[in-house]
């Protein structure tokens, strides 16, 4: 992609300036998202510090193998998105759509597995508000489990938004309302968001599922 192709908004004077500004804006936004999930991490750490045994006990009830499979699914979806963005920069519309479509499928698979996992959790009586008699619903173990539910559902919400963003971008590029490579920045921004959602999961995985010991 060469700079001359880029559509320039009126407040900018150079394509390069606009491009750096767009990336900077997105990085700042993802920085805010980092703080959002970071606050949850701070809580998990604080409770693990205060109640190490119960947290580990609670973690042993999480479905580690589903989560491992889900991690692999998300990491692969990130590869698909990265390949799609690479195609967008080269102006290959269909390759972009293919990459994003693959990522969407993997994302849906992730949500499906996660939903199945929640179902198992609730059957076991781990979930809040069910009133199921379970040793894990008393004391600090419940705090760990509930933070797990909140953090993973917040992640799932972000992932669903990401699915929408990827789909929207792919359709706009396919129908040429967004032109590549001139407006490849749209695909790049969508990609950044998706990868960020992936990074969040990369940390949720060890902090909850691998906290067994």
């Amino acid at each position, binding site marked *: 992609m060469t700079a001359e192709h880029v559509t320039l908004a*009126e407040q*900018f004077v150079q394509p390069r300036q606009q491009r750096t*500004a767009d990336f900077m*804006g997105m990085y700042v936004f993802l920085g805010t*998202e980092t703080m*959002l999930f970071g606050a949850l991490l701070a809580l998990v750490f604080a409770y693990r510090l205060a109640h190490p045994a119960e947290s580990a006990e609670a973690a042993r009830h999480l479905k580690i193998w589903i989560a491992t499979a889900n991690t692999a699914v998300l990491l692969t979806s990130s590869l698909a998105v990265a390949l799609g963005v690479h195609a967008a920069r080269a102006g290959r519309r269909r390759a972009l759509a293919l990459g994003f479509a693959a990522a969407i499928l993997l994302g849906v698979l992730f949500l499906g597995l996660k939903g199945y996992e929640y179902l198992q959790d609730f059957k076991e009586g781990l979930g809040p508000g069910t009133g199921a008699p379970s040793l894990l619903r008393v*004391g*600090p173990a419940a705090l760990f489990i509930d933070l797990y539910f909140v953090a993973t559902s917040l992640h799932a919400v972000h992932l669903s938004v990401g699915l929408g963003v990827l789909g929207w971008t792919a359709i706009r590029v396919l129908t040429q309302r967004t032109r590549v490579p001139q407006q490849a920045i749209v695909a790049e921004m969508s990609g950044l968001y998706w990868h960020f959602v992936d990074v969040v999961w990369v940390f949720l995985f060890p902090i909850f599922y691998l906290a067994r010991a």
Partner: protein
Amino acid sequence: MTVAAPLLTPEERVSYLAAGATLRSWLATTDHKRIAILYLISITIFFFIGGTAAALIRLDLLQPTRHFLTNEGYNRTFTLHGVVMVWFFLIPSIPATFGNFLIPLMIGAKDLAFPRLNLLSWYIYVLGGAVTVYVLIAGGVDTGWTFYTPLSTMFANGHVVAAAIAIIIVGFSSILTGLNFIVTVHKLRAPGMTWGRLPIFVWSHYATSLILVLATPVLAVTLVLLLAERVFHVGIFDPSLGGDPLLYQHMFWFYSHPAVYIMLLPGMGVVSELVSASAHKRLFGYWFVASASLAIAAVGFLVWGHHMFVAGQSLYASVIFSFLSIVVAVPSAIKVYNWTATLYKGDITLDAPFLFAMSFIGLFTIGGLTGLMLAMLAVDVHVHDTYFVIAHFHYIMVGGTVSAFFGALHFWWPKITGRLYSQFWGRISAMLIFVGFNLTFFPQFILGYLGMPRRYHIYPPELQVWHVLSSAGASILAVGYGLPFAYLLYSLRNGRAAGRNPWGVAGLEWTTPSPPPRENFLKPPVVTREAYAYPIEESGHDG
């Protein structure tokens, strides 16, 4: 400047105000100047809602026990006052209006980096505001603006859920504004506008934006957790599960203490401009003042625990937080001394903006020093959660930020509207506000030291005289705040045309017509001088 109020001056004909008069041309605009006006109107509405709640509080406290509000009604009133004033007036007050209007003008840009995000942020603000109005109509909230758990999650029966949602929503508006400013300052400065030539106003907005983007998300997620606990009975801070309500307080103050600097730093930026402009002289110690803004933003993140000295926090953590709270006073002190030194050998015009700036310095100094007292551990143990704290933060936020807001309004009004207002009434209003403010809040320091807890509806009868004095001051304050709306609105139709530079001061925004054209400058500016370079170069070179 002597033209007698023509319908439209030639400059007004190309101005951003003339770019369209339909509702659509306002509600679908991406012009930062128009969005600033939209914000100005909306925050003014919330200022009056919050002010009405304040008036109710002061009226009701005239008597120690015989009240027209019930205890519950009183609790809902002060909660509404806090929520509206903090999130719907103070936080957006200066950044979203004057920051929005002036940053592109001051750095010589055509607009902010992301104009559509800017408009979106206003719509998000309006949505959050609408939910708040719903809370008000539905009956209010009874937790205090701090929403401490487990009161808010298990015991309060007001509209906690809607209020928390409103705050989460308005938080996104803050984040978008902050993001926009950061990228704009980095990427859209005009040729020649180096960091060393940025007005302090821009520096302090940059510092503010850092806090906006880094702190606001923590508040959002904390409130999400609060909602999860209240609505779905998810255990997060629940003491019966071994949960720790202090963790809520940590998360809350990690946002809410820096939020004080979100309110204050833009005010300091405004005052730096006003002091230099009134003295027609370079700001004393530019680099000290500029870096003090960044220092406040950074160190301001390390002091939140001073809200928790008596909360059951670790003694050691308290000592650390106390020390850091004293450190954060250093850059503030630098600013006050440097403003004073700027006046030395100045050429001072005693106009309304100057009077507002001086009352900012005086009131902020008192607020800051009582803040230092609160940072002293043993003193805080006594005055924590009393009227001493109330007086302290009103000196900072009302004496400081609101004075700066009115100073900014009086200083840039000619630039924004192209019209001059009555200096006589401006000076009267500045002095009324100063006197009324001190009469309202100084007695509250004494009340606090005497042991009057905050959020008390019924209070010991021996404290009544101080409360009556405070309420009397509040009525003067109300007149002082009401006056500008009369003479400023009057000036819109009847004021004389302002011309480019009615104050005869330095600054890029004064080289363009008043009101500025849609593109801000008739031709793209090239900056060759520092900020505050006096004497100024006369007459616009771009016309």
